[in-house]
C-alpha cells in the first residue's frame, strides 16, 4: 500500500520519464522543482530565461502526463550569483516569471561560498518575495553550513520576512534546532549516501517530532534517489512512527509552507484528473511511438 506524499524539492528536468512513472507508483502525487544550476554555469541571461520557461511550461506538462502535479520555484541560485552583470540581468527578468501559474516560491536562493555578491542577490530576492507575497525557499550551503544557515535566517528576518514564510532546506542534526526554534520551516534533503539519509531522518523525527519539519529528495543531475521521500515514509512507518507524523513530514507540512502562494493545494490532486497521453504541449508529445495511456 502506498503512502500519499509530495517531494517539495526535486529537479525533475534532470530526470527521465522512468522516474516519473516510479514516483507515481510509489505514491508521489506532486513535486516542487526549484530553479537551480545545471552543473556548469550558465553564461547569459537567455539560458536562465529559457530554463524558467521550461519549469513553468514543458516540465509541468511532462509531469502531468504521468499523473504528477508539478510546481516550481523561480530565482537566481547562489552558485550562479557571483557575476554581478549577469546576476542583475537575471534579477530583472524574475518578475516576469515569478507570478506565473504553478510558481510556489522564490528559490532556491541563499549562500554557496558566502560572498558579497551572493548576499546582494539573496537580499534582492527577499525583497522580491515580499513584493510578490511569495514564500521563500533557502538553499543552505554545504560548506560552513551552520554559520551559513544562521546568516541566511538573520538576513531574512532583517528584510522583514516572517519565519513561517521561509523554508530553510538541506538541514542537518546540527542546524535543525536553531531553525525550528526561530520559527522557520526546516526541510531535510535525503541523499543516497552522504549529507543526510533516511535512517537519520527517522532519528530526527523521533527527537524533534514533526512540527515545522518536512523532507525532500533534491534528486538532480547527479547520483540521487527520486524515491527517497516514499522510501523514508515507509521506513518511518516500519519503525513505529505514527502515521499522522509521517503524513506531516512527507505531505502536509510542505503544503502548509508553500500553500500561501495560492498556487498549490491538496485539492489540486484530490480529484484525480485522468491521464491522457494524447495531449500535446504546444504541439509536442512525451510519447515516442508508444500507445497513449488514456485513463
Amino acid at each position, binding site marked *: 500500500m502506498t503512502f500519499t506524499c509530495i517531494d517539495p524539492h526535486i529537479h525533475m528536468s534532470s530526470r527521465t520519464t522512468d522516474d516519473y512513472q516510479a514516483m507515481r507508483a510509489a505514491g508521489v502525487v506532486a513535486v516542487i522543482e526549484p530553479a537551480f544550476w545545471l552543473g556548469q554555469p550558465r553564461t547569459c541571461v537567455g539560458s536562465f530565461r529559457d530554463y524558467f520557461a521550461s519549469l513553468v511550461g514543458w516540465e509541468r506538462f511532462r509531469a502531468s502526463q504521468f499523473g504528477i502535479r508539478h510546481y516550481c520555484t523561480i530565482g537566481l541560485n547562489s552558485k550562479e550569483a557571483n557575476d554581478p552583470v549577469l546576476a542583475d540581468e537575471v534579477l530583472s527578468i524574475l518578475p516576469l*516569471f515569478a507570478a506565473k501559474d504553478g510558481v510556489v516560491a522564490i528559490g532556491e536562493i541563499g549562500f554557496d561560498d558566502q560572498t558579497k555578491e551572493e548576499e546582494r542577490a539573496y537580499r534582492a530576492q527577499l525583497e522580491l518575495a515580499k513584493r510578490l507575497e511569495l514564500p521563500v525557499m533557502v538553499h543552505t550551503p554545504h560548506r560552513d553550513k551552520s554559520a551559513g544557515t544562521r546568516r541566511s535566517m538573520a538576513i531574512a528576518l532583517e528584510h522583514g520576512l516572517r519565519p513561517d514564510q521561509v523554508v530553510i532546506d538541506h538541514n542537518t542534526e546540527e542546524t535543525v534546532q536553531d531553525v525550528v526554534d526561530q520559527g522557520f520551516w526546516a526541510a531535510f534533503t535525503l541523499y543516497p549516501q552522504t549529507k543526510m539519509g533516511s535512517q537519520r531522518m527517522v532519528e530526527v523525527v523521533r527527537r524533534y517530532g514533526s512540527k515545522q519539519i518536512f523532507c525532500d529528495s533534491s534528486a538532480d543531475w547527479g547520483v540521487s534517489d527520486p524515491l527517497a521521500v516514499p522510501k523514508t515514509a515507509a521506513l518511518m512507518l516500519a519503525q513505529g512512527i505514527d502515521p499522522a507524523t509521517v503524513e506531516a513530514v512527507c505531505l502536509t507540512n510542505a503544503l502548509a509552507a508553500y500553500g500561501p502562494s495560492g498556487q498549490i493545494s491538496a485539492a489540486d490532486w484530490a480529484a484525480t484528473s485522468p491521464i491522457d497521453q494524447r495531449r500535446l504541449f504546444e504541439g509536442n508529445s512525451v510519447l515516442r511511438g508508444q500507445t497513449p495511456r488514456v485513463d
Partner: protein
Amino acid sequence: MPAARLAAWVLPQLAPDSRTWTEAAVARVKSGGLTELGPAMARAGRRVDHLPLVPLPQGNFPSHWTADQGVRVLLAASLPWDPAARWLKDLDTLFSCAEVQESIALYQGLAFLPRPDLLAPRGAVGLRSSIESVWAAVALDNPFPGRHLEPAACRQMIMKGLFLGADVRRIIGLEAMTDGELGRMLRDFARERNAAGRPLPSHFDAVLSLCPSAHP
C-alpha cells in the same frame, strides 16, 4: 487605438473585483514599468475571467477577445513608451518571457499598443511560430498584418495559413493582399500538389479567386 479607448471598452465589461484589480495594476505599470508589468501579466490570467468581450458596433473593436486577453493588452499598452528604444527593448523582454496564453494575448493586441508601426519585426516573429495558436493570434481577426506588414510578409502569412489548414478568410484585409505575385505562388503550389496527387487545402480556391487573373 490609444490605451484610453481600449480601457473604455474593456473595463466596463469586467466583474467589479477584476476591474478594481485591473485599474490598480494599470496604475502600477504606468509608474513602475516592466518590473510591475511582469507579475501583472501573469496574474491577469487568474484575476480576470475568460468570458468573451462584447465588441461595440462602431470603432473597430476586436471581435474574438476574452476579458483576460483584453486586460493583458491593456496592461501591455500601459507600459511607458517613450523613449521608443527603451520601450522596444522592454516589449522584447515581455514577449520573450511570455508563456503561451500571454503570447496569444500580446500578439492579438499588437495593433493596440502605442507604436504598432515599430512592431513589424515582432509580428513577423509571431508568424514564424510553430505554435498554431500563436500564429493565428497574429494572422486571423487581427488588423495588424494588413496595416503594418510588408506585402511579401503578408503573402507568406497567407501561404502558411493554407499549409496549416487555417481559415484564411479570417485574415483582415485579405483582399488587399491578393496581388499578382500571390496568384503566381498559389498557382505554382496547385501545380505542385497536382503533380504529387495530393489535395489542395481548404479555402485555396477562395483565396485564388481574389487574385488577379494570370492572363489579363
